[in-house]
C-alpha cells in the first residue's frame, strides 16, 4: 500500500499537477488565471514524459567507451523540448489575446465580458426597434 503511493510518487505528482491545472482552466473566471492553469496542465505532461525516459541510476546518454553503461532514454527529453516550445507559443498567444481583450472590454473577467456582450446585444436590439 505504502509502496503503491510512494513507490510511484512522481506519477502522483504528475497526476496532482494535471488535476490542478485542469481545475484552474475550468473553474477560474479570470482569463489570465486560465492561462496559468493551462501552463501547469501542460507542464504536468512534460513531467510525465520525462518520468518515462528516466532510468534510476542511469546517466546522461553520452557516447562513451563503456558499452554497458545504463543511460536514460534521450527521445522523451527531445520530444519535451519541442513540446515546451509549443507550450510557450500557446501561452504567449493566450497572453496576447488577453491583453487585447482587456483593451476591448476593459476587463479580463469572463462573466463581465459576457455581461458586456449582452448589453451590446440589447442596445443593438433597441436600435433595430427604432
Amino acid at each position, binding site marked *: 500500500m505504502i509502496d503503491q503511493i510512494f513507490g510511484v510518487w512522481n506519477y502522483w505528482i504528475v497526476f496532482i499537477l494535471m488535476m490542478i491545472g485542469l481545475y484552474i482552466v475550468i473553474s477560474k473566471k479570470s482569463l489570465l488565471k486560465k492561462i496559468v492553469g*493551462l501552463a501547469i496542465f501542460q507542464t504536468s505532461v512534460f513531467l510525465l514524459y520525462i518520468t518515462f525516459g528516466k532510468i534510476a541510476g542511469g546517466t546522461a546518454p553520452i557516447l562513451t567507451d563503456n558499452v554497458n553503461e545504463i543511460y536514460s532514454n534521450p*527521445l522523451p527529453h527531445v520530444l519535451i523540448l519541442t513540446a515546451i516550445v*509549443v507550450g510557450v*507559443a500557446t501561452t504567449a*498567444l*493566450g497572453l496576447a*489575446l488577453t491583453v*487585447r481583450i482587456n483593451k476591448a472590454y476593459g476587463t479580463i473577467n469572463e462573466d463581465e465580458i459576457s455581461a458586456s*456582450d449582452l448589453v451590446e446585444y440589447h442596445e443593438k436590439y433597441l436600435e433595430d426597434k427604432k
Partner: protein
Amino acid sequence: MMPFIIKNLPILIVITPLMFSLIVAVLNNNRLAWTLSTFASFLTMIFTILLCFEVSYKSNISYYLGNWPPPLGIEYVIDRISIIPIMIVSVIGLIATLFAHNFFTLEIDEKLVSKTYSLWLLTIAGLIGLITTADAFNLFVFLEISSLSAVALVALGSKVDRKALVAGYNYLILGAVGATFYVIGVGLLYGVTGTLNMGDLAQKIPALGLNKSVIVAFTFMMLGIMVKAAVFPLHIWLPNAYAYAPSPVSVLLAATATKVSIYIIVRISYTIFGSSYEIYSFESLRYILLYLAILAMFAGTIMAIFEKDVKKLLAHSSVAQIGYIVLGISLATSPGIASSFIHLINHALIKAGLFMSIVAMGYYTLKRIDVKTIAGLGRQLPITFFSFVICALSLAGLPLTVGFISKLYLIKAAYMSEGIWLPFLILVSSALSLIYIWKLIEGLWYNEKSLKIEKIKELPEIYLPLLVITFLNVYFGIDAGLIIDNSFIASDALMSGIK
C-alpha cells in the same frame, strides 16, 4: 530538377506554404503579399496533383525526413487514404486564397494584412503536415502549428467585432487542452511500445494483449482530437470561432480544419488501433461515436433553425454535418467509411461555397450578417445568390448536387449495417435542415431590403472562386465516379488493417 521534385513531393507540399509564410510576413505591400500567397497555394496544389499521379500507381509513398529511417526518424506517408484530405486542403486553400483579398483589406488593419497572409499560409502548411506525417508526436506539433495560427486568424476579426477576441481565446484554450490530451495519449503509448511511428505502433500494440495503458492512451488521443474535430458535445468553440473570424478565415476553416481532424480520428482508430480492434472489442466503443453523431445531427440542425446570425447558422450546420461524417466512421464497415470520405470531400465543397456566397453578401453589411440585414439582397446580387442557392440545395442533399451523392451512400451504408431506423433518423434531420436553408433562401429572395446602402453591386473579383466552387458542387453531383471510387479505395485500404 524534375526527379528531385518528384522524390521530395511529400515534404514540398508542407515546406512550400511554410517558406512562403516567412517571406510574406516581412512584406509591406499587401497586394504583393496576396499575389505571393496565391502563388504559394497554387504551387502547393500543383505539387499535390503531381503527388496524386505518383500515388495512383505507387499506392504508397514513404518519405524519410532527413533520411533518418523510422522508427527513429520522422516518416511521412502519402497513400490512397491521405491523398484525399490533402487534395481538399490544397484545392480549397487555393480557392479561398483567391477569394480572400477583398475581404482582408476591408476587415483587417492595413498594417496587418501581410502578416495575416503569413498566418494563413502557416495554417495551410500545418493542416497539410498533419495529414502527411506518420509520426504520432510530429502530428502534435503540426496540430499546434495549425491551431495556433488559426486562433490568431480568428482573433483578427476583432476590428469588425470584438467578440472575435473571446472566440479566439476560447478556441485557443479548448484546442490546447485537446492537444495536450492527445500528447498524454501518445506518451502512454510510447511508454508501453517504445515507438512513435504509426505503422510501428500498429504492429506492436496487438502483441501487448489486453493492456490498460493502451486503452487509456486510445481514450486520451481520441478525446483530444475530437475537440479539434468539433464532434458533439466538444464543439462549443466552433460556432463563435467561425462566426466572428474574418470572412475568408471562416471559409478556410469551415472547409478544411475540422475535416483534417476527422481524418486523424480515422487514422487513430483504424490505422493505429485497427489491428487490435478485436482485442479491445471496440465494437461497443463505436456505438458511443454513433450516438454522439446522431445527437450532433439533431443538435446542430435545431440550433441552426433558431439561429439568426447567418455565419453562426452555417457553423451550427457544420456541427450537424460533422455528425454525418462521424456517423459513417462509426459504422466500421467499408461502405460506411467510404461514405464518410465522400461526405468529407463534398461537405468541404458545400461549406466553402456557402460561406463564400454569404460573406460576399455580407460585404455590404460588414458587421452583422443576420437574416434581417441580408434580406432582399438576392435580387441585387443574382450571381452570388445563384451560387448560394446551388450550395444550399447541395447542403440539403438535393439531386444533381454533391450533397445528394454523399447522402445516398451514407444512407445505403447505414441501412446495410444498422437497418431502417438509422437512415430514417438521418433523413429526418436532413429534412429539418431544409427549414433553415429555406429560411435563408426565402429571406434573400422575398423580403424587402433593409440596408440603406445605395450602391450594391456584385464583386467581380470573387466570381472566379465562387463559380468554380459552385461548378464543382454540380459537376461532382452528376459525374461522381471519381470521388466515389477513390473513397472506396481509401476505405478498403483502411479496413484491410482491421483484424
